[in-house]
């Protein structure tokens, strides 16, 4: 039977969908019955959601960096040709 300790260990596997269905069902049951487990579960889920949003934010490669990279590689390519 899943308890709070076990839930604490399994949360990532649960949200990464790496657990068997019956274990997920046990977790769902615990979360619906135990207040602390529910709060841990909800705040962990929200943390993952916020992390995914922040991770998805991308910045563009600045134009000067892009140009410098290509110029730099061009020099390397010429060296190899010689």
């Amino acid at each position, binding site marked *: 039977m899943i308890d*709070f*300790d076990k839930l*604490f*260990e399994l*949360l*990532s*596997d649960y949200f*990464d969908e790496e657990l068997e269905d019956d274990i997920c069902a046990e977790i769902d049951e615990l979360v619906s019955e135990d*207040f*602390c487990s*529910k*709060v*841990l579960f*909800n*705040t*962990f*889920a*929200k*943390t*993952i959601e*916020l*992390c*995914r*949003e*922040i*991770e998805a934010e*991308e*910045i*563009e*490669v*600045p134009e000067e*960096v*892009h140009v*410098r*990279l*290509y110029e*730099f*590689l061009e020099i*390397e*390519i010429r060296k190899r040709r010689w």
Partner: protein
Amino acid sequence: MAVSDETLVEKSQQGDYLSFQELVKRHEKKIYNLAYKIMGNKEDASDVLQETFLQAFRKIPGFKSKAKFSTWLYRIAVNICLMRKRRQKKMKTVSLDVPILTKQEDEIRRELRDDWSKSPLASLESEEVKRALSDAIDSLPEEYRTVFLLRGVNGFSNEEVANALKISLPAVKSRLHRARLFLRDKLSEYFKEYGSKE
């Protein structure tokens, strides 16, 4: 239809430099973003980007096509980032499996009174929450942050992270889980503090 990375790698190995340039074009943004998130500033990210493709260019003749090119490339980038970080810390190293101190069960249970996940403020639209989370990610030990960023920023699977960092799958899963618990703790502290101000 777009030419695959594998084909571009093969052509690069035969001396087709335009194919290598195409690989650069495909991966430069992801590498730059990864480097920026690990290093924390654009100057270092630019240097890492350049160094990554320089090393890739020099090493590509020996690249074995059974490995995925992007995994190989990100491994190069991560190694460069970590080397630079270590140099910046003047060789102050941290054990690879240093545990992140997370709270004990009774401590967590005492704290679990407020479910901040339902707060309308628990959103990245709040600049303060965004900063709190970014600061928390920055404060993760390198080994955890690298796993966390490769999973998140680059969308790698646990297996791909294990291959890129040459660590075991259980180590990846353990570090990712501990990183998330650490970030949850930090956000809980933030919301607790925020609530006490109200």
